[in-house]
């Protein structure tokens, strides 16, 4: 997956776990928590969905890398190199 596709993959996951949030206008660099309502329970869901959809294991110590969409793309890029963007489950 390209960086753009990873960003799309994370946005798809956010849409699944928080369908009422507006994800169209999310920017890459501000913390997701400052842009929409996401608590620690929701971050766990992002991680769990990444595992479910792409088989990526994110250790708890690395959750902080997922704070922004850019961070997600950078961190997940090596893990998702061989994957195709999945549609929402």
């Amino acid at each position: 997956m390209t960086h753009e596709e990873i960003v799309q993959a994370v946005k798809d996951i956010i849409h699944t776990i928080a369908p009422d949030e507006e994800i169209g206008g999310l920017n890459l660099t501000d913390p997701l928590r400052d842009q929409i309502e996401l608590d620690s329970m929701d971050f766990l869901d992002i991680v769990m969905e990444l595992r479910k959809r792409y088989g990526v294991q994110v250790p708890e110590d690395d959750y902080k890398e997922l704070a922004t969409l850019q961070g997600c793309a950078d961190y997940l890029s090596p893990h998702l190199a061989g994957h195709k963007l999945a549609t929402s489950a």
Partner: protein
Amino acid sequence: MTASTPYDTILIGAGMSGLAAGIRLAQFDQRVLVLDRHYLWGGLNSYYKREGRRFDVGLHALTNFVPKGTRGRPLTRILRQLRIPYDSLRLGEQHGSRSVVGDTDLHFGNDFELLRGEVARQFPTRATAFDGMARELEALPFDVPEGQESARAYLTRHLGEARLVDLLLLPILFYGSPTPSDVDFPSFVVLWKSLYEEGFARPRGGIRPLLDALRSRYLELGGELRMKAGVAEILHEDGRVQGVRLDDGTELHSERVISSAGRVETLSLCEETVAATCGPEHAGRMTFVESTTLLDQPAPDLGWTDTIVFFSQGERAVYEEPAEAVSHASGVICCPENYAGQEPETEGVLRLTLMANAEHWMAMSDGEYLAAKEQAWSKGLETAALYGPDVRKQVVARDTFTPRTIERFTGHLNGAVYGCPHKDKSGTTPLEGLFLCGTDQGYLGIVGAMLSGVAMANRHALLPA
């Protein structure tokens, strides 16, 4: 008996907390099994049919009501975690409730200003103190640490006036205290927020659509549910859980068991050395007799306009295990028709909850038991008539449940509704792999039960992965 493929997690109890935990785990592809000894799911919140009429158990009110889209509150958080759309619950807000101690009434509803105004009107010298206290409580999170001060001590320190303290405390005690006359500060904060800052609502149709939504979501996700499958023993070796043995001898294996049966009740399923760490003397004692009375016309048409009335007849708020089988000194009357947007009914419903002494009910012969139920109900309607219209000539059907019924259908010792006095938010036990959710883990009410299941599933069954 036959060994089987191990489950990722086995959940004991198909109540609100167990089903919520099951949904979380099945959602992330765990092989999960929910077991319950009873044939109906729901635990302390359930429903049944008798002679073609539907009766609900539990749910007077879904506390923690917030409007759709409200952020960071328990109701919206659990719905997101369970991926249940807010609108599917079709929540109707209460018309209005009151707390009555002696001859003083305090009205409250889902708008906190109503309560503030009532305090200012009836206790003008305490209005400023009340506002300060309310602001302080509003600023606290839902999970404050255990403190030295109890709810009563806190209220008394701020308000001084005993009657006002009792009026505010009565609904809080009846809706969640495992201890007599008072409640610990963390539980008080949760209940204050759930009852007064947030408020009461009812899903259209009562507990049934909510329970059915949980159950079908769980099953759709591939979760397994076995009713009439009681756990006789929790299997463990070297301090680690290995699975369960059912009443019929079947052994099921899993390295993780989450139980909503209660702390004492769960540990009693383990070997003696483990069971002895929390014996039956630690079980809760707060239990109730509750009757549902169906009327020949809607209760609002007969003049019942309150949603819920919490009453105490004497000069103080009474919340304690009575010396006799049932006490009419205090109680709760709920009229489920007095929520917005309910289905039009041809018959009215009044529910009455009274404090009970479990030992009395357990010791009765069958004949005594039936007579005592009948008496608790008929005197109950007489008591209810002190707080609303007398409906005794309008009765078409009724049913009463007692501590004995609660213990039989939920397995909770003494029929204790709010669990044991000592809550442990960690949900851990002396056994590795055995965790608790539900009332003894420390969250309260229907939303609290679901939150408990979600939180324990997240912490103990999803995070380690």
